[in-house]
């Protein structure tokens, strides 16, 4: 029996798998009955357990060097192993029983909702005969690392690594030359306290579905810096408050203008606010910036003013007396949502009138220019055209520009035609 050194161990996947395979082959060869041998499915379960255990050890070694005489237990869930193997939980339980008989698993402790703790035969990991340890002398992984980690989650199924986690390729594993005993041990942090090595393994997150997918996502969320998370939360909260303030402002405005005498209790008031949130602001589903929301809010206020003008115009005009009816998103007949069409129509009309006025102005200026009058009398026709074009393009209205060009062409054609007639007469 070899003397076990107390220096930190360095475990390689390939060595451990070779040891495991050799152990199982030896076990099978020593069995007289075929039914006592470990089948391929048992082997698959063993490899899966060993692989996950090595990953757990690798993570643990980042926090504290793992000593061979203090190998921690492997924490997992039966359901995770079952999912990874594509079998039922019962199969995993049966496999574990067989592996216990074979001596691959030397101990098991159930932790209820915390999963199960397995003690793997150190011979598989170290490739040597490990001195027999009593189960209670082997420390639990949570006992070892609870001082460093607040919540050490039991390992659940994760997708296969795309590369060897122990490989030095692309990672700054730095065997300490000054201290050869630390060979292969990953350094936890550099002098500045920053992690000096890349310890993650590439994983196929897009293939990580179901229960374990959630787990992986939650791990990613946990790994986000707490300060950044806090800031993000604050930002979301501020945005929410801002949007709620828009609804309240709107209701205050609408109440003052449309329902000045109404008396509402708190639940009714909240109901109306909810309806406004749904019907006027569309539950804020559209991802607008704050300035865009303010612009939309102003249009909503303008719609309320529009309704008020419409009510004042005729005694027969009316809106529902109850605001919860008026702001109901289902109320297509006489609800507030119909005012959007009014607003669009009104705005379109405004733009058309503005365009007409601008074109009239241009026409007038052109006529006065032709008569060599007005303020543009000293400009050439091309200069006048440029001035008009520049002025109209400021409105950024394609229809206006098209109307302008069409009018210009028409006037030119008339001019050419009249010149032709004059020439013929001459």
């Amino acid at each position, binding site marked *: 029996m070899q003397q076990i050194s107390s220096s930190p161990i360095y475990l390689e996947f390939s060595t451990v798998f070779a040891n495991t395979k050799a152990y199982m082959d030896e076990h099978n060869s020593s069995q007289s009955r075929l039914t006592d041998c470990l089948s391929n499915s048992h082997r698959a379960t063993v490899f899966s357990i060993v692989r996950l255990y090595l990953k757990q050890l690798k993570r643990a070694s980042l926090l504290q060097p793992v000593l061979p005489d203090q190998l921690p237990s492997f924490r997992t869930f039966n359901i995770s192993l079952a999912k990874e193997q594509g079998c039922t939980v019962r199969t995993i339980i049966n496999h574990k029983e067989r592996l216990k008989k074979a001596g691959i698993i030397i101990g098991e402790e159930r932790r209820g909702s915390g999963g199960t703790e397995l003690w793997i035969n150190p011979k598989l990991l170290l490739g040597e005969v490990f001195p027999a340890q009593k189960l209670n002398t082997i420390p639990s992984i949570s006992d070892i690392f609870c001082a460093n980690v607040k919540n050490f989650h039991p390992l659940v199924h994760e997708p296969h690594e795309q590369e060897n986690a122990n490989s030095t390729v692309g990672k700054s594993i730095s065997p300490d030359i000054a201290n050869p005993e630390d060979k292969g041990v990953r350094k936890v942090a550099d002098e500045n306290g920053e992690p000096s090595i890349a310890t993650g393994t590439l994983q196929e997150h897009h293939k990580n579905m179901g229960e374990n997918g959630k787990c992986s996502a939650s791990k990613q969320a946990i790994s986000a810096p707490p300060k950044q998370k806090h800031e993000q939360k604050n930002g979301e909260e501020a945005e929410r408050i801002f949007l709620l303030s828009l609804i309240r402002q709107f209701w205050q405005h609408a109440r003052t203008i449309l329902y000045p005498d109404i*008396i509402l*209790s708190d*639940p*009714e008031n909240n109901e109306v606010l909810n309806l406004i949130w749904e019907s006027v602001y569309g539950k804020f589903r559209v991802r607008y910036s704050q300035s865009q929301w303010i612009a939309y809010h102003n249009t909503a206020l303008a719609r309320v003013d529009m309704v008020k003008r419409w009510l004042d115009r005729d005694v027969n005009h009316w809106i529902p007396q*109850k605001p919860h009816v008026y702001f109901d998103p289902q109320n297509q007949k006489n609800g507030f949502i119909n005012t959007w069409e009014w607003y669009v129509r009104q705005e379109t009309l405004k733009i058309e009138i503005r365009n007409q006025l601008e074109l009239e102005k241009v026409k007038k200026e052109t006529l006065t220019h032709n008569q060599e009058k007005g303020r543009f009398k000293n400009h050439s026709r091309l200069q006048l055209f440029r001035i008009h074009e520049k002025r109209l393009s400021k409105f950024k209205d394609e229809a206006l520009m098209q109307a302008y060009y069409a009018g210009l062409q028409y006037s030119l054609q008339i001019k050419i035609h009249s010149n032709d007639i004059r020439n013929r007469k001459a």
Partner: protein
Amino acid sequence: MISEIGKREALSKCIVWFYDGNVRTFYSLDKNHRRAKQNQALGIQRLEKMLLETFKGKWETAIIYENKDDGAELAKFKRGHRI
């Protein structure tokens, strides 16, 4: 007629003082359908509708309260008007 369970689960109640001297308590029905989430505003609106339409001209005072011990007053009506 509302059941005892309905009375217990109602979020608001309305006490009505009729002109003929009767005083009765009505409990709100706060759901659109049996499995719907309770909506207190809906219950209040229904009670208000009952007062202003069903019992129009028959009552002098009506007060809507929260249906719990020391429930707050939510709405008060006097002679056909909310005050």
